């Protein structure tokens, strides 16, 4: 068994292009050569989660069509007053910038992870978590501002009640994803910092040995949450 196992999976011959896809899928053991189990599972999960967010956004579009009351003017609702001047979409532009930046630090963390640079990886993951936490904090600020102005899930002074309902539901669900991500980023940062991934320490709950692929899997999730935000941003704030 193990003695027959290839010691270095990277040495597997892999064909490129369509031919490679066909030969991988008609082979034994693994359909995605070189892809570890955890990474494959994260991709499948993200596919499923895509359908969750797609259902949310389609529902939002449907109620926006079905409601009889005019939709609020979003560039007014989502504006901040800075120095006596109303700047539309200011807060959300900063939030989006922060979240996209966090994807950058995450990508760098993955790169340094594969170089086994323990310190840089941990710091970059921490930076990502900090960006994420800032995003959630600013979202809390935005929610507070809207609630103070009288926006509720069941109604608001600016127009269709479905505006408040879908806004709180969808940004809340996305914010929940970001918060979960931040928690796991902090756990991952601690693991990297302690050297669990270098020493291949078994996980506390799952008993699976640590490795730097975990950083990349975490990154996949983080980029996904980022990508979803782009859609929410486009459909909520720009439409």
């Amino acid at each position, binding site marked *: *068994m*193990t003695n027959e*196992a290839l010691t270095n999976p990277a040495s597997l011959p892999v064909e490129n292009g369509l031919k490679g896809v066909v030969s991988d899928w008609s082979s*034994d053991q693994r359909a995605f050569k070189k892809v570890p189990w955890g990474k494959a*599972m994260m991709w499948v999960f993200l596919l499923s989660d895509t359908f969750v967010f797609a259902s949310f956004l389609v529902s939002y579009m449907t109620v926006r069509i079905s409601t009889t009351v005019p939709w609020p003017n979003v560039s007014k609702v989502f504006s901040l007053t800075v120095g006596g001047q109303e700047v539309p979409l200011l807060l959300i532009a900063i939030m989006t910038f922060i979240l996209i930046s966090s994807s950058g630090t995450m990508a760098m963390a993955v790169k340094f992870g594969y170089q086994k640079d323990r310190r840089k990886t941990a710091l970059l993951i921490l930076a990502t978590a900090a960006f994420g936490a800032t995003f959630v904090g600013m979202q809390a600020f935005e929610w507070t501002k809207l609630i103070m102005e009288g926006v509720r*899930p069941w109604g608001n002074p600016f127009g269709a009640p479905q505006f408040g309902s879908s806004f709180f539901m969808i940004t809340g669900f996305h914010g929940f994803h970001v918060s979960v991500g931040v928690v796991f980023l902090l756990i991952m940062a601690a693991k990297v910092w302690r050297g669990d991934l270098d020493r291949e320490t078994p996980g506390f709950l799952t008993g699976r040995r640590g490795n730097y692929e975990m950083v990349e899997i975490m990154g996949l999730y983080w980029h996904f949450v980022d990508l979803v935000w782009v859609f929410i941003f486009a459909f909520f704030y720009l439409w």
Partner: protein
Amino acid sequence: MTYVPIGHDATVYAPPAETPEPELYHPKTFIGKYIWSQDAKVIAIQYSITAIGVGLVALVLSWLMRLQLGFPNTFSFIDPSAYLQMVSMHGMIMVIYLLTALFLGGFGNYLIPLMVGARDMVFPYLNMLSYWIYLFAVLLLLASFFVPGGPTGAGWTMYPPQAILTGAPGAGWGIILMLVSLAFFIVGFTMGGLNYVVTVLQARTRGMTLMRMPLTVWAIFTATILALLAFPALFVSAIMMTLDLTLGTSFFMPGIVSQGKQLGYGGGSPVLFQHLFWFFGHPEVYIVALPAFGIVSDILSVNARKNIFGYRMMVWAIVGIGALSFVVWAHHMYVSGMNPYFGFFFATTTLIIAIPTALKVYNWVLTLWQGNIRLNVPMLFAIGFIFTFIHGGLTGIFLGNVAVDLALSDTMFVVAHFHMVMAIAPVLVVMGAIYHWYPKMTGRMLDDTLGKIHFWVTFLGSYAIYLPMHYLGFLGVPRRYYAMGDTYFVPDSAQSLNASITIAALVVGVFQLLFLYNLVWSYFKGKPSGDNPWEATTLEWQTADTPPKHGNFGPELPVVYRWAYDYSVPGAAKDFIPQNEPPDLSAAGAGVPRT
């Protein structure tokens, strides 16, 4: 062609293992082994027992419903509200908490690792969580029987506005418990489903290519993908309906006047709920049906002692049905008031899906053709499935057409159709599968005589229940009605038909107790089965121990040299060749060496 002499060097036929085996978790205590177990086989049995247990509740509910329909005004404890609650809970439990959980959580967990030659699922810890969240969802659902107002009576489809208005039974607690329970079920299922998909894709043993997998694995794999993509729509609609109920949002609620009072709702779309629900609901039909297709293919092939006819076409039919099932959902909504052009589109796709389905039926029949058929109990159930599935499928063609459906919608004809095609047919397969794999799970055979009695009563009884029900539908007897009352179009004789259906249902129900008795009795007193009682080729029958120990196979994982259907191979010594039997170079037609 010249063959390379291979000795025992399997690498000639199968590539070397690409990765070292992961360490298995080793439980040290009884609780770790049987309660908080991470072994897929134990989780499978936990799933199965829970699913069958909650299924029995739904069975009893169906008896009570039938008592009311067969003998109205006889049972004072069944009032209209209670009747609606029984209908709703019966439907939801049977479709989701019994069939989905049993096929994917039960058979999926047990069979996938064994059939693809893996030691366990890829992430056993997540798999364990999946079961415990499922159990929590079941308990939440059952709790609704004990809350003020009782369980929801809004129908298993929970259409708004009536599911949200206070008029429906269980309007306070019942509906919310149902929605929250569904959300938990979906979270739990996703954890298991990710495991099933990744195990099939990435954790097969050496030599096990996708096109050598038994159809059972193909079917459960495809059904799991359907579930992972379809359940999100139900998850989202459950969240939105919960918000409508608790926070007073109006996702699904139009402006509405109830009992002369204008409610606070307005501007939502009730049809949106129907679209979301059926975007989940139609794939759900195939989440239940596809595993049945796969399992029945294997049972038929084993007991006909022939390879499954058209294996590749069977695989592509499973995949094709799975893909098509996402574009037919609105055929449940012909009478919902959606745009009539939608009806044209969805009727077309619905009829297209009949093509791969019919292809499968032909292949099952052709597998039997000139087979050396062993009419044992699993085989009887498998053949029974072909009958009930064809009947249910044919009435599906009626209902798939808009013009016919408009007349038959919401009548007993629909009830007869979907019970025939997605209740009786998959349940016959579940029973056949239990008779088939019980020896592997326990090491003992189920009693044959009891099994045959069980089959004939269930099979003939199903026809006694559902054939007359089609006729009631033609007469115009509506579904979900507590009592028929006086109409000018339903003759009095319909009532005697209803009574006979009820008697048949009760008889069939009682004989399921015989099956449960058989399960328990055989566990202690059944005939020892040996490792491979059915002389089958697939890997789960080639394990070193029966029942298989933790880790499934002995110290060495099996290497697969051939597909799953080498039965009655000309020139072979036995009439079956296990998948892990190395090619005998002296025999003609032995496996082809890897180049």
